[in-house]
């Protein structure tokens, strides 16, 4: 095992090391190969399922049940159960969609882009982040379907051969969405799964029950830890990383085109693609922090996910907060400078007190711009309570941002006669919180059934994993 090729082997540019200041060492401390493997796999295989898990799972599946109920009622009755109307024909569903897709960004960003950028710290969190991506996309993917007036015809948005010889209408950003999100989901899933194969083999080998051995065995696809396997594995992983990288950028750019390609004042903005991608990474990292902090406590993974890891993520949150805030500022400035009457009104309307949505705008400015500034202070950046609080605020703020973009733009557009409001109903809230239930349920199941940290990659960081090389 010690002589096997390693991921980190490919990263050796002396420049990178030289240019960097003394970097934190992300190597798991106090572990050898055996203890590391045991520590992580025992979470699933040996340790009894805790009361905390059951409690959380109960709560999550209760929410999931509500989600199911809300969906059944929605399918039976129609989208009229939501607070939609004619000026505001998109509401929570699209907000939720964009929000979840945004959260889904962090996983692949961590896996792919940070892999290509040789960021060692990604190793401890990439599995969690990738799982989060998959589950977030699962939630995200549901919303555009539920949002349809006739969801049973959702497949008409996909190109498939049919007797009517009808294809989707390719000028519509919604069709681009179908491609962007489904591709992203597919690649993320494959990436996640491939990256997990060596670990699944470990699980297979360590599984105590027959059922476990069979299940992990099937999933491990006959991984035998041979050099050839490692060789193929690493090149595939790298290639997939390369493939996923543009997708991270493209998917939210395309989602932003849902708005940018429309002529609705407040939507029709060229700044949207980068601004949406920054916002997506922002919320994604916030979600990763929110997931990592409890997990490292409960499953005693502090040696793996260290405060240093959290601090790096905090820095990214701070950086993307600034990018997103720059987006807010540029939107307002451009509308002011452009002096298009209708558009200017919409932007003014968002921030001025004469509309009841102004509180949404100012709340999100607080959550997304003001609150993360606390992370400039290193001491607070390394404080988990602060990080969790900021992350929660960021997640709320990013949801509000999408809500603001969708609602405030639609409710006051060109003709004043059609101006209206959007007031959500109980069903809007149930579908939103219900989707959190879906996410949480899936994530909790993941914790209990797969190695939550990438064991093989962590092992590769241990001293001795590269023959003569000792750590870094």
């Amino acid at each position, binding site marked *: 095992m010690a002589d096997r090729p390693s991921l980190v082997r490919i990263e050796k540019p002396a420049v990178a090391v030289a240019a960097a200041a003394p970097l934190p060492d992300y190597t798991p401390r106090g572990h050898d190969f055996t203890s590391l493997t045991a520590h992580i796999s025992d979470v699933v295989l040996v340790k009894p399922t805790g009361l905390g898990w059951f409690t959380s799972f109960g709560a999550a599946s209760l929410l999931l049940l509500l989600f199911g109920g809300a969906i059944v009622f929605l399918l039976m*009755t*129609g*989208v*009229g*159960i939501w*607070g*939609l*109307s*004619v*000026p*505001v*024909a*998109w509401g929570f569903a699209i907000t939720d969609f964009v929000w979840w897709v945004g959260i889904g960004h962090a996983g692949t960003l961590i896996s792919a882009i940070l892999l290509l950028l040789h960021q060692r710290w990604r190793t401890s969190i990439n599995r969690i982040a990738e799982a989060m991506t998959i589950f977030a996309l699962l939630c995200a993917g549901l919303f555009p379907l539920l*949002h*349809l*007036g*006739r*969801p049973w*015809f*959702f497949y*008409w*948005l996909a190109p498939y051969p049919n007797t009517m010889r*009808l*294809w*989707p*209408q390719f*000028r*519509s*950003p*919604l*069709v681009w969405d*179908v491609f962007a999100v489904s591709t992203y989901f597919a690649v993320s899933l494959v990436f996640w799964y491939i990256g997990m194969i060596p670990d699944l083999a470990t699980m297979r080998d360590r599984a105590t029950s027959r059922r476990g051995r069979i299940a992990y065995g099937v999933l491990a696809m006959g991984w035998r830890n041979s050099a050839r396997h490692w060789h193929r594995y690493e090149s595939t992983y790298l290639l997939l990383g390369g493939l996923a990288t543009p997708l991270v950028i493209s998917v939210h750019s395309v989602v932003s085109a*849902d708005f940018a*390609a*429309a*002529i*609705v004042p407040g939507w029709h903005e060229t700044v949207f693609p980068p601004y949406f991608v920054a916002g997506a990474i922002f919320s994604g990292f916030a979600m990763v922090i929110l997931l990592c902090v409890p997990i490292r406590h409960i499953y005693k993974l502090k040696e793996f996910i260290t405060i240093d890891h959290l601090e790096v993520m905090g820095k990214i949150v701070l950086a993307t907060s600034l990018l997103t805030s720059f987006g807010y500022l540029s939107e307002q400035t451009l509308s002011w400078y452009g002096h*298009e*009457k*209708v558009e200017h*009104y919409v932007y003014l309307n968002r921030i001025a007190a004469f509309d*009841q949505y102004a509180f949404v705008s100012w709340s999100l400015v607080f959550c997304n711009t003001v609150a993360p500034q606390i992370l400039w202070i290193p001491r607070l950046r390394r404080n988990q309570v602060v990080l969790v609080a900021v992350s929660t605020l960021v997640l709320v703020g990013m949801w509000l941002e999408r809500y603001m973009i969708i609602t405030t733009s*639609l*409710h006051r*557009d*060109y*003709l*004043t*006669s*059609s*101006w*209206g*409001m*959007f*007031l959500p*109903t109980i069903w809007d809230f149930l579908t939103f919180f219900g989707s959190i239930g879906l996410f949480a349920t899936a994530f909790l199941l993941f914790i209990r059934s797969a190695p939550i940290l990438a064991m093989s990659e962590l092992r590769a960081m241990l001293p001795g994993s590269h023959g003569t090389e000792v750590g870094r």
Partner: protein
Amino acid sequence: MGSLETGVGSKEEDRTRDRMNQILFAISDQHTTAASKPAGVGRRYWRSLEEFCDTDEFRRLVQREYPSQAAFALDPLNRRKFLSLMGASLALAGASGCSITPAPTTEIVPYVRRPEDIVPGKPLFFASAMAHDGAAVGLLIETHEGRPTKVEGNPDHPASLGATSAIHQASVLDLYDPDRSQSVRYLGETRTWDDAIDAFRAMMSEPGQQRGGGLRLLIGTVASPTLRRQLESLQQRLPDARLHTCESAPNERALQAARAGFGEHGSPRYDFTKADVVLSLDADFLYEGPGHLRYAADFISRRRVRTSAADARQATMNRLYVVEPAVTCTGAKADHRLALRASEVEAFARSLAREAGLSTPAAAHGDVRSRHSTWISAVAHDLEAHRGRCLVIAGDRQPASVQLLAIALNDHFGNIGQTVEYTRPIASLLANGSTTDWIGSFRDLTDAMGQGAVKCLVILGGNPVYTAPADIPFAENLAKVPLRLRLGLHEDETSRLCQWHLPETHFMEAWSDAIAYDGTATIVQPVIEPLYEGRSAHEVVAILTDSREVPGRAIVREYWANEWKLDLGSSEFETRWQTALHDGVVEGTRLPAQTVTLNTRWQSELARESSQLEGSQNEDPTSSLEIAFAMDPSICDGRFANNGWLQELPKPITKITWGNTAIVSPATAKRLGLGMGSYAHGGEHGGYHMPVVTLTLDGRSVDAPLWIMPGHADDAVTVHLGFGRRHAGRIGGSSDETVGFNANLLRTANSLWFARDLKITATDQTEIVACTQAHHQMEGRDSIRAASLNNFQEHPNFVSQAIDDERRERTLRAADGLSLLTPHNYDPPRHKWGMLIDLTSCIGCNACVAACQAENNIPVVGKDEVSRGREMHWIRIDRYVAGDADVPKAFHFQPLPCMHCENAPCEYVCPVEATVHSADGLNDMIYNRCVGTRFCSNNCPYKVRRFNFLAYSDFDSPGRRMQYNPDVTVRSRGVMEKCTYCVQRIRHAEIGAETEDRPLVDGDVITACQAACPTQAIVFGDLNDPQSQVKQAKDSPLHYSLLDEELNTRPRTTYLAELRNPNPDWEGG
């Protein structure tokens, strides 16, 4: 234990006995007849033994027969309750109703054998007329295989000229109303006509009844000459019987004034084509009254400007001054509008008369004169400057003194015989117009009933129990009449207090005739076999007169044979009869103008008329609030309350649907310390939670939600009648759930239209007011482009000059190059359909909205959905208030159908190609391809797309299915829909032209909204045809496109800017 069992047994027995009693002795009861009512809440009625038993088998039967009922019953959404009610028309009627009555014995559709002219799929049109407001408007009723589906105006009819009002359009829905009464009922039990006739005969055969001593008839305004003749012969036959009137909007004051002025009763008839200046004294002549469609057409014909820019100097327009309390359609079109309280109009008229040089008794309120002296003198001068070419109109709500002043002013300015002429009374009870004190007559009847002098009361139409003024105890005294018969379309409040309810035929089911505002008669022919067991008023009066059961057709034919002095059997009669039927007008029936001269004593008559009002006039007008009553613009006095189309029609000015409010001005609201409430679900596009106030007048009070309307007179409240009904039906209100509040509870016989000393007290309650457009202002956008005539003459191209050139250039530059929009080619021989709406001509009357609803199978969604901003109308009329909300400068209407943009923003965002461009330039909507992403609606800058958020369409109830236009798809849930330019009519015309091997010509295609419009504000046609009306109108310098400069949408529906003609000599007016 044993005793307990006995107890149970006896309870069982009691229940059985109760049921037996119900079967055998159903007793009169005010409660509902709904079978679903739980036991213990009133007495239950039932339609069949199965239903009575309410067994599982019956429920299965219901589910099998009427699956809709079951489905809707499962629906837990309360807000869809009314939909469920519509769908659950257990109305055994509908489809099955046709078989109740015996096979037709006269020629009448539906045919038994297919005659030559019925081609399945091709509609037939029958000329007929609908009487409303005491006069008729000629209609063409469209039938599909014997089912009336829509009405159009009859172009040959003088009161219509092809146009209709919203009420006419909605009349077809009334025909299929599942809540219509279906059989003769005695105390709620089903009986037969024979039973009712026997009961009547028995009463009449009692001693002392032979001459009709105890018989009274209560009847509304009679527009049918046949019925008038019948009533006369009834009086001859039964000389002691008496006729009484009930009409919630009696218009006898004009008749009285004519009598005071000229010495004889007469109806005024206006000729707006000759009037250069019009002054309306609280008269909504564009929207209300027997001749309003014609008046609107004539009035607007003098306002329409269609000159080229070069000839702008020659453009002329008439000028309209309006003095009124609440904003009406007429007021909204005024060049100068003065908001005065209703009671102050008289003072205004007096001051004006003085200013004009007439000697009138001193005006009651000097302050009106001093406050509005500029107004008064400007109007007086303008009228003076247009002698013989001006017109003063007094509204029916104003007292006879104002009517008399209007007569005097018209006389003074030499208008009589020019712009106004007088004919024999049109709207009256009898042909000779003998009864003119309508309220007095109604009061007499009530008194007689109270004294027990009335043995038998027959109520033909009307709903006096609901509409009676609060101080006339009609409902109480009614119970003292031994025999009460009621003929009506619905079993309403009045029917419930009568032993006998007799189902009436709808006007589309029966023979009759009716005269128009100018006396022109139309023979009303049935277009469908009566759906239920109804009979017409003619048939009932024939029975009352001499117990003969004569078919309505024979009665009407007999009358016209007499009138024409022809034999019934003669071929000459047949020819005239057929011609009259075919044309929809009876030749030569227009009433001639009478020669009238104003009495020299008119001033003393005026003093006499005024003295009746003295008591209330002497108070300080500022100390208290005034209340004004008005007919509801949609449902009138409540007679159309059960019509979903009319209930959901946004009222022309307030845009409120489903209910009435206490309307006040912003200043008065401020004074009362009240304001607009918080947003309802849909915000400005859905309504508000409005504070509920208690209105107290003379010790009577009702609770009403407040509404603030700029332009309303200060210190006054306007309330609309017709709401708060408790037995209207499933749409219009039941005892469980009323729609709006009943303003009749405040109305007294002495102050039918306005009263002083209203007290308003705020309550802590709120109520949702569903309003489709609560945002009045344009926020500086140029949705409406308008100018004064002078301005136009000086700057004929003001519309295009107003456009920011730089912006237009930027838009066009942006349109170059790479684009998501695909170019289209519409070169001839293709058509290029386009629409033009003239904002000067639009009077906001909603006829287009209702016509579109009827033509295109547009569903009704109910109050709750409207308050969520989800009404489905394909064409809406935007109403803007220009200027300050406290002192509005002008009101604008802007009808908005789909713009059919050439660069349609909706098309490129649809992911499934459900909305695409047709070869002739229509923006088509393919319902069965739509998945409901609603992106098209979001991207539509005009917001004309409508979405089926829930299952709004009624696929199930038999009646509604019969009404549907077979050429238009009924849309399902989750599907977007919008105006199609009546594509079914375009294709019909194209096919027709192809069959006849000729090209389409201008006028072949007339959209539903265009057809209904009384002022021809909507023009539709082929833009590729240089001769077409629409193309020529679009060459006007007033032409502009909405939002095109900003968005480069290239809309096909465009507008002509609105022109007004304010008095140029009057600065600051």
